[in-house]
C-alpha cells in the first residue's frame, strides 16, 4: 500500500483514502480566507520530526512574519518544534533579487541540509509572476524534478479558483489537488472542501463542509453512503412505540432498526409520540438520543415532566441545537457521535422540517437522510422522525422531502373537524415488512400521554365521526 501523509485529522484522511500519498506534489487552492495556510500548517505539525523535518517556505504573497504570528494562535502550533523539526524560511527577498533560478538553487540546498519529509510553498501562485509561458513551464519541470528526486512530500499553496485548473500548467504536475471554497445559500455561508484530483487512489467525491478553528480544519465528510447490499442479522423482536394501542395496530410495535416517519400538522402530538418512543425505550433498557431542533431544553423539560418523565433520566441523551445557523453536515456527525458514545438503540429527530432548512439544497438533504437511515438500520438503531404538514385538516401531500419513501413506517396525525370542535386522528399508512391495521383512530392527549380511542367508522369517517358516536 502507498505510504500516506496524514493531516492529523482522521476524517480528512478518510476522504483522501487514508491521507495524501507520501512523496507526492499536492496543491491546496482557494481564495483568500479559505484556510489554506491553516491546513498547510496542520500537515506540517502532524508530520514533522527531527529525522524528517518540515520546511515552510514563504514566497511573496504570504508575509513571513504573518504566517508565524497567526500560526501561533493555532493549538497544534508547537513553538519548541520551530528550529528543530519545523523550519520556516523566507524566499521573498531571494525571489525578488534572483528570480526563479534563485528559488531552485535555494530549495535544492535546503533539501540537502534539512532532508525534509515535507515542504510547503506558500504561495506557489506568486512564483508564476516571475516568469511567463515556456519559461515558467521550464521552471516547473525543473522544480518538480528536484522535489520528486528525493523522498519528500510537498504542498503548493495558491490563491487559485477552480476555473484556473485547466489553463495553469502546475495543476498537471500535481498528484493531488484540494480545493477550499465557500458556498452561499441565501445569507448562509458554508465552507466547502473538495478533492479535485488524487493520483493512484480513490477519494470521497463531492463537496465536504468544514469549519476553521484554533484546532485547524475540522471536516464533515458529505454523508452519501452508497447502497450496501451485504446482509446483516435480523430477528423477530419488536420495539414498542410506547403506546399500547398503537403497538397493536403495528402488529406489536416496530422492527428494531426500522425508521418511522410521523407526519402531522402543528400541535397535533408528533413530539409527544416521539417522547413515548424514547422513554419507552429507556424503560426497556434501550438508551436513546433525542435530537431536537424544536423545543429549548427548558421548555422540553417542562413538557416531559407533565407526562411523568424526565430529561435527566439515565439513558436519555438530549441533543438540542438551534435551527438558526445550523449546518446539517456538522449536525449529522454530532448525532452519529452521540449514538456511538451512548450506545443508543433509539433515536428521535424532531423535526425534519427544521433540519431541511439546515441543508444547502434538497439533494444534499435527501443524501444525508438516506445515509442516516441506512446506517442506523444496519446498526439496529430504531429511528423516529417527525415532519410538519402544512395542511391542518385535509392532508394532500405527506412529505415534500421524499422521506416517506425511505421510511419503513409512516404514521399520519391529523385534525378532524367536528362542528365547533377539533379532534385528533392517527393513521398507520405504511409498515414495511409487517402487517398493520389501516384504520383512522381518534386519539387524545392525557396526562399519561397519547391514548388511542376507537376507529372512525367508514360512514362516519366521511363525516368525521368515530364509531359508536
Amino acid at each position, binding site marked *: 500500500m502507498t505510504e500516506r501523509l496524514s493531516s492529523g485529522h482522521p476524517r480528512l484522511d478518510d476522504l483522501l483514502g487514508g491521507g495524501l500519498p507520501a512523496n507526492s506534489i499536492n496543491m491546496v487552492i482557494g481564495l483568500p480566507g479559505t484556510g489554506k495556510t491553516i491546513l498547510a500548517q496542520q500537515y506540517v505539525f502532524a508530520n514533522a520530526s527531527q529525522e524528517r523535518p518540515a520546511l515552510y517556505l514563504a514566497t511573496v504573497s504570504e508575509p513571513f512574519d504573518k504566517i508565524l504570528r497567526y500560526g501561533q494562535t493555532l493549538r497544534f502550533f508547537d513553538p519548541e518544534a520551530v528550529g528543530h523539526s519545523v523550519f520556516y524560511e523566507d524566499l521573498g527577498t531571494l525571489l525578488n533579487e534572483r528570480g526563479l533560478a534563485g528559488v531552485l538553487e535555494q530549495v535544492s540546498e535546503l533539501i540537502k541540509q534539512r532532508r525534509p519529509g515535507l515542504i510547503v510553498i506558500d504561495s506557489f501562485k506568486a512564483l508564476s509572476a516571475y516568469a511567463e509561458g515556456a519559461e515558467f513551464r521550464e521552471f516547473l519541470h525543473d522544480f518538480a*524534478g*528536484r522535489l520528486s*528526486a*528525493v*523522498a519528500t512530500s510537498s504542498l503548493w499553496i495558491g490563491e487559485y479558483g477552480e476555473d484556473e485548473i485547466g489553463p495553469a500548467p502546475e495543476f498537471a504536475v500535481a498528484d493531488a489537488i484540494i480545493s477550499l471554497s465557500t458556498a452561499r445559500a441565501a445569507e448562509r455561508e458554508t465552507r466547502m472542501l473538495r478533492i479535485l484530483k488524487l493520483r493512484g487512489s480513490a477519494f470521497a467525491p463531492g463537496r465536504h463542509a468544514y469549519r476553521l478553528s484554533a484546532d485547524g480544519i475540522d471536516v464533515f465528510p458529505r454523508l452519501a453512503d452508497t447502497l450496501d447490499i451485504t446482509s446483516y442479522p435480523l430477528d423477530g423482536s419488536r420495539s414498542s412505540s410506547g403506546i399500547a394501542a398503537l403497538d397493536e395496530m403495528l402488529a406489536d410495535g416496530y422492527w428494531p432498526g426500522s425508521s418511522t416517519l410521523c407526519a402531522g400538522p402543528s400541535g397535533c402530538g408528533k413530539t409527544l409520540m416521539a417522547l413515548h418512543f424514547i422513554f419507552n425505550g429507556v424503560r426497556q433498557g434501550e438508551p436513546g438520543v433525542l435530537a431536537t431542533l424544536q423545543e429549548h431544553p427548558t421548555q422540553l423539560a417542562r413538557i416531559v415532566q407533565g407526562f411523568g418523565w424526565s430529561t435527566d433520566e439515565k439513558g436519555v441523551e438530549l441533543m438540542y441545537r438551534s435551527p438558526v445557523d445550523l449546518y446539517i453536515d456538522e449536525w449529522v456527525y454530532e448525532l452519529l457521535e452521540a449514538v456511538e458514545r451512548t450506545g443508543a438503540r433509539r433515536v428521535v429527530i424532531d423535526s425534519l422540517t427544521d433540519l431541511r432548512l439546515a441543508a444547502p439544497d434538497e439533494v444534499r438533504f435527501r443524501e444525508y437522510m438516506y445515509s442516516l437511515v441506512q446506517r442506523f438500520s444496519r446498526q439496529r438503531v430504531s429511528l423516529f422522525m417527525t415532519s410538519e404538514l402544512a395542511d391542518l385538516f385535509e392532508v394532500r401531500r405527506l412529505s415534500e422531502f421524499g422521506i416517506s419513501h425511505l421510511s419503513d413506517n409512516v404514521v399520519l396525525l391529523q385534525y378532524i373537524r367536528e362542528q365547533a370542535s377539533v379532534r385528533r386522528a392517527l393513521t398507520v399508512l405504511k409498515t414495511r415488512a409487517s402487517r398493520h391495521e389501516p384504520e383512522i383512530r381518534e386519539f387524545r392527549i392525557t396526562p399519561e400521554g397519547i391514548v388511542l380511542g376507537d376507529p372512525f367508522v367508514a360512514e362516519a369517517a366521511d363525516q368525521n365521526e368515530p364509531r359508536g358516536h
Partner: protein
Amino acid sequence: MAGDLAVYSMGAVERMLGIPAATVRNWEERYGLVKPGRSQGGHRLYTRAEVEQLRFVKERLDQGLQPAEAHRLLGEQLERGGNFRAPEEGQPGPRLLILLAERDPYAAEFAEFFLRTEGYEVVVALDADDAARKLEQRLPQLAVVELLISGGTGAELCRRLKEAGVTACLAISTLGARDQALAAGADAFLEKPLDPLQLVSTVKDLLGESAFLQGATSR
C-alpha cells in the same frame, strides 16, 4: 593538521577506545610510552596521535597479546617513526568509492551529496556506457544502480559490475522490481524516491560502517 591540533580529555579517550581511565594511567606509569600533556589544572590532554597510539595497544590486546608485549610493539613502531596521526576528518586515506549510476540528474545530485557527507567518494554516471567507462578508471567498492538507466538496462549493468569485481550492488527503482534486481545479482534494493537516511544506512549495511569509521578502524 587539524587532527593533531585537537586534544582529548581522559574521559573522551575512555569513551572512544573503551579502555578504563585507571588502566590508561597505569600503562603510562608502567611503560612510559604514551605520555599526554597536562592542562593548567593538571588534567591529562591527549593529542589525536596519542589516541591512535593507545588504539594500537588496544587492538593488540584484542588480538590476545599481553599489555607488556603490546607496548613493546608500540615502542618499536615509534622508534621506526610510525605515523600515528589521524587523517583529516572527511578524508580517510583512499576513501571507499561508490559508483552512482543514475539517469535522473536531480536524483543523482541529491544521492551524491548524501553519500559524500558520509565520507564516501562518489562518481556519477548518467548512463550505462558512462558507468562502464568509470568502472575502467577505478574499481568501486559499491555501485548504486538505477534499474531504468539507459532504457531499462540497470539489471544487466548490475550483473556486469559484480562480474568486474564490485563488492556490492544496490539496485534502486521507482518500479517495485526487487526480485528482478536481486536475480541480476544486486545485493539490496531500494524503492525511489530515496530517503536520505535509508540510502545511507543501506550503503553502510553493505560496506560496514561509514567511510569515516572504516578509515579509522582500517589503519
